């Protein structure tokens, strides 16, 4: 197996253009090293950790720009993330173990494109975008269209994610990330649900609502039908119940060792209900009227 430590982005992109599917990008290594041990060795490893400028968190206008080499722990301990992007913070806080959070990078979690990737449902509801670089240019892509299937994304074999742009949600909104797993630590989510609500001026209904579902479809998804149904309606327990059932029907989970598909749908329903109730209450100070 060949090994490269490119010192610049263009050098890295040149290697990926040359080796294509043979090349595997590695950063933290927490997923790739397991693949090397238990699946197969790639033709070559491209370690991108020596490329400068990809490991910073900075504010830019109304958004946070996060470098792909920023570790999950760096995000978890960042006070701006905790204050302005609590749904993203919560996912990083619940991520694996301290040892893994110290090593795993956010870019790796995204580009792995696992349906259960912990940070992905939160990034979907935050309407974050990725800056993708290729040998022949770069583009910006919202994560809502970035994921194409398990392990498949717009970055492909020849591109690199170079920045994650996360716009701050509007002032009156509240968000929450709920994860269901058997163990607290070191467990992959059976279901992850991220909810963001923005009440209308009268605190009567939802001006905006976004629901992200993890681990219950080939990619992390937004429950867009449910969101459309909810917008503009007076918020009530009956509406929440209907929305939770609808979100469950928008999921298409598989059965595996962690859970049956049927159980996953129930959990989507329960967590969506809880997420809507809790974020509504946090945003409005009001209990959900029944």
């Amino acid at each position, binding site marked *: *197996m*060949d*090994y490269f*430590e490119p010192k610049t982005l263009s050098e890295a992109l040149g290697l990926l253009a040359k080796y294509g599917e043979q090349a595997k990008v*590695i950063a933290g*290594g*927490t997923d790739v*090293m*397991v693949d*090397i*041990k*238990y699946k197969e*060795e790639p033709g070559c*490893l491209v*370690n991108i*950790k020596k490329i400068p400028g990809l490991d910073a968190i900075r504010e830019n206008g109304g958004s946070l720009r996060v470098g792909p080499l920023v570790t999950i*722990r760096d995000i978890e301990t960042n006070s701006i993330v905790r204050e302005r992007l609590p749904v993203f913070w919560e996912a990083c806080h619940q991520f*694996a*173990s*301290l*040892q*893994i959070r*110290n*090593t795993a990078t956010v870019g790796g979690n995204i580009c792995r494109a696992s349906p259960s990737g912990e940070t992905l449902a939160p990034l979907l509801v935050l309407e974050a975008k990725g800056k993708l670089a290729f040998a022949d240019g770069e583009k910006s892509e919202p994560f809502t269209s970035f994921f194409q299937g398990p392990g498949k994304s717009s970055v492909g074999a020849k591109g690199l994610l170079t920045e994650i742009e996360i716009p701050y949600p509007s002032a009156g909104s509240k968000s929450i990330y709920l994860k269901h797993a058997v163990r*607290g*630590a*070191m467990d992959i989510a059976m279901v992850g649900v991220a909810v963001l609500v923005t009440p209308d001026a009268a605190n009567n209904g939802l001006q905006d609502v976004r629901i992200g579902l993890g681990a219950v479809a080939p990619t992390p998804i937004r429950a867009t039908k449910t969101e459309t149904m909810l917008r503009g309606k007076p918020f009530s327990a009956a509406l929440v119940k209907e929305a939770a059932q609808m979100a469950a029907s928008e999921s298409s989970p598989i059965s595996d060792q962690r859970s049956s598909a049927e159980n996953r749908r129930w959990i989507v329903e329960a967590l969506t209900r809880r997420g809507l109730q809790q974020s509504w209450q946090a945003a409005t100070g009001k209990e959900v009227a029944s």
Partner: protein
Amino acid sequence: MSLTINTRINGKSIRSSAEASTSLLEFLRDTLEYKGTKLCCNTGECGACTVIYNGKPINSCVTMAADANGAEIITIEGLANGDELHPVQQAFIDTGAVQCGYCTPGYIISVKALLDRTTKPTAEDIEEAVSGNICRCTGYNKIVDAIHLAADRIAGRA
């Protein structure tokens, strides 16, 4: 493809070589003969292979040996001062936090990293620090006792 690795382990400069596919754990155990760091799940889930990497606890089984280049690494062998055990090691013995002992080096490293960050850890700090370490013998209570005792001794409270 063999890579040259220049690293510092337990304060000692080391120059050696490793394959690109070699994990830091394999490099430590098999190349450098630091056998105190344990191989268990080999997938980053159990914490037996925990070492301190540039001041932070990490799982050496899912870290590339290549990443040891230029890094400062502390393994369980680096804790005792001659015959005098590190306070965390002594506390594990004194509270009976060791049974079969296989997970112990990983635990002690995680706890040392915690107590390097704070000598007044809260229950939450302790849970966070060792929730990536699995012990199948002790039931954890004695490990938590050991952490409190080590913290008190390091801070001069006991």
